[in-house]
């Protein structure tokens, strides 16, 4: 670090200290986050995670220094993007990701900001009375017309493509439409823990999938227990029910009269007779008066 200024050396040392202190270290992008909001989030994460902004090259140096004790942590350096900061915590990385995602908010697009993904104006009623706003919409390429006394967007329209800067007039229009396409928050890019780096795509938990997996596991366990007749407290009733049902079914299908099957068998015989009667009911004389009513 011969050519490195003294303050930078100190900064690297501080970063290194932070990285050494915590088991879980992540790289975040402070997505367009206003200072006030960042402060608030820091307060919310207090006791759980520390966020420290710095320059990419200094973080790189700190990661290199730490690689001896935290094997593979240098792999984090490939995930630095945007307004970079380090986050350090003892939290489960998946939980950390979830907390940060849940705290993201949406914000209006400022002129000149880069669209993170396509910005779409959806088709439908804008709520605006006919007026100059119609021209404004058309000006920025949104097909609109008057319908039932309202300005209506005719079809879903991409006004800014992902990666493009938001033009000033579009930003104004979006704001009037109350469309807030920008995500504001702490974007966790990658996390290091115990020699492994988890990227955001791995960190996202699909709760619906988890629920579905649980239900699948529970269903399979019940099915297995019942079908293989392995009694458990939870399934013994169902096993009895199944055995009884099957026995009754066989009894009824084979017309084996017992105290429990006679009723259903007679019922079934009569129902079948009535079914045939109704199938021939429109033929004159085919059924007797008693049935014809």
């Amino acid at each position, binding site marked *: 670090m011969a050519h490195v200024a003294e303050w930078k050396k100190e900064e690297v040392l501080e970063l290194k200290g932070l990285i050494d202190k915590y088991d879980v270290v992540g790289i975040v992008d402070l997505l367009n986050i206003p200072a006030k909001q960042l402060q608030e989030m820091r307060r919310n994460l207090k006791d759980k995670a520390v966020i420290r902004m710095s320059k990419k090259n200094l973080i790189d140096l700190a990661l290199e220094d730490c690689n001896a004790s935290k094997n593979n942590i240098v792999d984090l350096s490939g995930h630095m993007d945007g307004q970079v900061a380090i986050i350090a915590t003892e939290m489960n990385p998946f939980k950390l990701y979830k907390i940060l995602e849940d705290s993201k908010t949406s914000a209006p697009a400022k002129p000149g900001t880069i669209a993170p993904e396509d910005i779409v104006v959806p088709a439908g009623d804008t709520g605006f009375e006919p007026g100059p706003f119609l021209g404004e919409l058309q000006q920025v390429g949104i097909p609109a017309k008057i319908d039932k006394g309202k300005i209506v967007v005719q079809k879903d329209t991409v006004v800014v493509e992902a990666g493009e800067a938001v033009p000033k007039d579009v930003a104004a229009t979006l704001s009037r439409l109350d469309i807030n396409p920008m995500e504001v928050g702490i974007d966790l890019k990658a996390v290091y823990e115990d020699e492994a780096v988890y990227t955001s795509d791995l960190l996202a938990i699909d709760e619906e999938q988890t629920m579905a997996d649980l239900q699948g596991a529970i269903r399979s366990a019940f099915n297995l227990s019942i079908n293989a007749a392995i009694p458990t407290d939870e399934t013994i009733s169902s096993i009895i029910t199944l055995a009884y049902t099957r026995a009754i079914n066989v009894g009824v299908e084979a017309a084996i009269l017992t105290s429990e099957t006679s009723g*259903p068998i007679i019922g079934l015989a009569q*129902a079948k007779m009535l079914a*045939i009667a109704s199938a*021939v009911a429109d*033929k004159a004389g*085919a*059924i*007797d008066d008693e049935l014809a009513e």
Partner: protein
Amino acid sequence: MEYIYAAMILHSAEKDINEENVKSIIEAAGIEADDARIKALIAALEDVDIDEAMETTAMAAAAPAAAAP
């Protein structure tokens, strides 16, 4: 409904559902057979898929083990 039951016996035993057979059953039950009715029933059943008809309403069969004490 005796006539229909008679037809069902024949169907169940995979016998021919014809006038003679239905009449035999009816008479064996000690009932005076009504030839016209038998003819009409046989004619009507010619257009009916008995198995299908029985199944469709088998559910309506919806009877009683539950109801029975």
